[in-house]
């Protein structure tokens, strides 16, 4: 017996996002940041969750269409080299004289990012086991929020400082471009042991990035797919 929903999935949720800047950092060039030339599915998932999020379901991004020509920009900024730790916060709570001297912790970093980007994200809703309501409810809620322009937090393009605006689907055509993007982050799996990563071979065809349902992972406990546990 065949499952009709497998062969005839409901039409995807579609939202278009646009931003003046974007940086979808390549994992190998994350210090002197260099962006992928196309939005990654994990960034697209972040955009969707900024618009509408419920613990009862997750998004599976199925396709990303590039709507504007790929343009690059370079930015060099002053940042700091250490990150906030729980131990530091505890120390600061006890000793009120503790301060972070950003000038003493300075790290100048370059970013090769994208300019004037616009994408059309296609995604499916995947209900979690504890969900009781039908999928259609969440799909409709998402569509209503997109039409209203409502979001829980401002969506962003890869890094939080690059805010994005979103809108319902328009008639824009994807750009005419083919490109092999290499191994791209598919998703991050969070487990009690830590996080691990899934990858896929990304390829832009006629301005469209098709995303497989599952990323690559290695079986077995002695191996890892990226993150050190």
């Amino acid at each position, binding site marked *: 017996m065949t499952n009709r929903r497998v062969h005839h999935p409901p039409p995807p949720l579609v939202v278009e996002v646009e931003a003046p800047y974007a940086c979808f950092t390549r994992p190998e060039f994350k210090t*002197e940041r260099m962006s992928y030339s196309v939005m990654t599915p994990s960034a697209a998932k972040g955009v969707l969750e900024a618009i509408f999020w419920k613990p009862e379901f997750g998004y599976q991004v199925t396709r990303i269409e590039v709507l504007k020509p790929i343009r690059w920009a370079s930015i060099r900024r002053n940042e700091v*080299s250490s990150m906030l*730790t729980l131990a530091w916060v505890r120390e600061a709570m006890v000793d009120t004289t503790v301060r972070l001297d950003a000038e003493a912790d300075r790290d100048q970093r370059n970013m090769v990012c994208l300019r004037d980007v616009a994408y059309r994200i296609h995604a499916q809703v995947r209900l979690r086991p504890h969900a009781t309501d039908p999928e259609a409810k969440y799909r409709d809620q998402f569509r209503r929020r997109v039409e209203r322009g409502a979001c829980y937090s401002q969506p962003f393009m890869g890094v939080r400082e690059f805010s994005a605006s979103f809108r319902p689907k328009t008639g824009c055509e994807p750009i005419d471009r083919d490109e092999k993007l290499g*191994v791209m982050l598919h998703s991050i799996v969070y487990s009690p042991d830590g996080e691990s990563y899934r990858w896929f*071979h990304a390829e832009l065809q006629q301005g469209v990035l098709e995303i497989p349902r599952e990323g*690559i992972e*290695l079986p077995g406990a002695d191996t*890892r797919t990226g993150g050190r546990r």
Partner: protein
Amino acid sequence: MLIRQLAAHAGDRRDLPPPYYRNRNVRWAIDLDGDGRPRGGRLVDLSTVEAKSGVLLDTPYVQRSGTGSLPFLLTDTLQYVLAMPKDDSDKQMADARRRAEDFAELVYRWAKDEPLAEPVVRFLRRGTFSEVEIPVQAKPSDVVAIRTDQGWVHALPSSVQVWGQIVRERKSAAGGLGICLSCGEGGPLLATIPEPVKPGGIPVAGGRGRDAQLVSINKTAQGRGGITQLANTPICDTCGGQAMSVLNALLADRQHHYRGSDSVLVWWLRRPAPFSLLGAVRDAQSQDVRGIIEQVHLPPARRADWLHDNDFYAVTLSANQSRVVIRDWIDVPLIELCQHLNTWFADHEMADLWEDGPQRVPLWRMAAALGRHGKQGYVRDTAPRSAERDLMAAALHGTPLPTNLLARLIQRVRADNRVDLPRAALLRLLLVRADPAMKEILLEHLNLDTRDPAYLCGRVFAVLEDIQRTALDNINTTIGDKFFGAAMARPLPVLTMLRKNATGHLRRLRGSRKAAGIALDKRLDEIFQKFAAELPATLDLAGQGRFVLGYHQQRSADREAARAAAAARKTAAPESA
């Protein structure tokens, strides 16, 4: 993608050193006899008058970070090999001894299965290395290699194999097996990239660079979740080692890199091609350019084999302290690159004052033309630092140039009062790439049909200057010297005034050089008749650019016509004689 393509190129290069070896200057040698005694009891100086730093050899090398003792196998600094301290303090002497012991341990490990290692082991076990005479000019950081009757011991196959194992042990992630981000295959993963980019490989503004890492995650804010090293950036040892080896080889190969003031462009092909692609852009050598243009115009079936299924890769690198910054990455089919280069030449070809026909201009001359023009040509380092990089990127990508370059060029033309071939070519390139409709107006030679007011104003100015030059024999300052800048921005008042003044010059020509006077007057009238409306009162930046091109191309056409007339007279003279 970059790391993957670099590693894939390793198979095509014959000049790569063995894995985790680097081509370095070796200043000193220890010559051991069969019994492991240094010949002459002293170090052999390998430096010559030509090579003061010693001879270049492929020697074991990986990046050493921190202050720990991490010796290289068989070839290292005097501090490691002969325990030469940095100073006379007890601390440094003890440190040097410790390093020498670690160095010897590494050699013993290699010597277990290598019969040719016997002299080296005897030399180290005997402990007489401290009696080797060290010349006064030697420094603890000088590299010293060991030579026996069989040659350099670090070049033996067993040395390469053992050193590879040692590096993998040092640099591999603990128990790390996983999918490599670069090649997508499973394998042992690295904790850090073993080899950095060599110092001097990447130009650094205002100084000499140092070792720079292509993939560097050594601060908590740089890695995901505060984890440093390559924990969340899985790269296998094959990709990491080969990619850096190839990158260093390309940076050392003059045919494969192009150095700017603060960046370097490195390029390579998936399969070799018979001529220099980048040389065509950089130097505009006619044989290279012709080869590319011919291939682009051929039907696909008749194109050369090296164009089929071939790809072009280029990366532009800068350095931020000890980290490499990737500024640009190009990965295009070779035919697409050839098409971009063809467009590059088609967009900037320009008539010249001194040569007949359209000329192609080397990229470096166009970049230099953005600088100040002094008495002996363009003054070095006065062009914007990013100019060469921007021009090269536009050539390879086939994209428009940054608009700030147009403002800069117009400002320099006005300030220097100078338009020449590189400036005119760059101006045409800037205008045509910014607005493709300009291709109809701005041709490589004088456009006699266009009615663009800015272009016509430039032509008028060139004719007015010609009238003045022809009328006055001994002229100190031409109207070009005095009014060119003003006429570029405000053609209506300036050209009206100059047209009135030209009446006097034309009257003078009627007396002295009547035919020339009539010809010039007629040319001026022809241009004025093309104006559909009144002359523009002011011109914007692009308009000023078209004015300059009209001026340059009118002058070039006049000079070419004069040269042709002189040549015709020259050929006619002997016939009539």
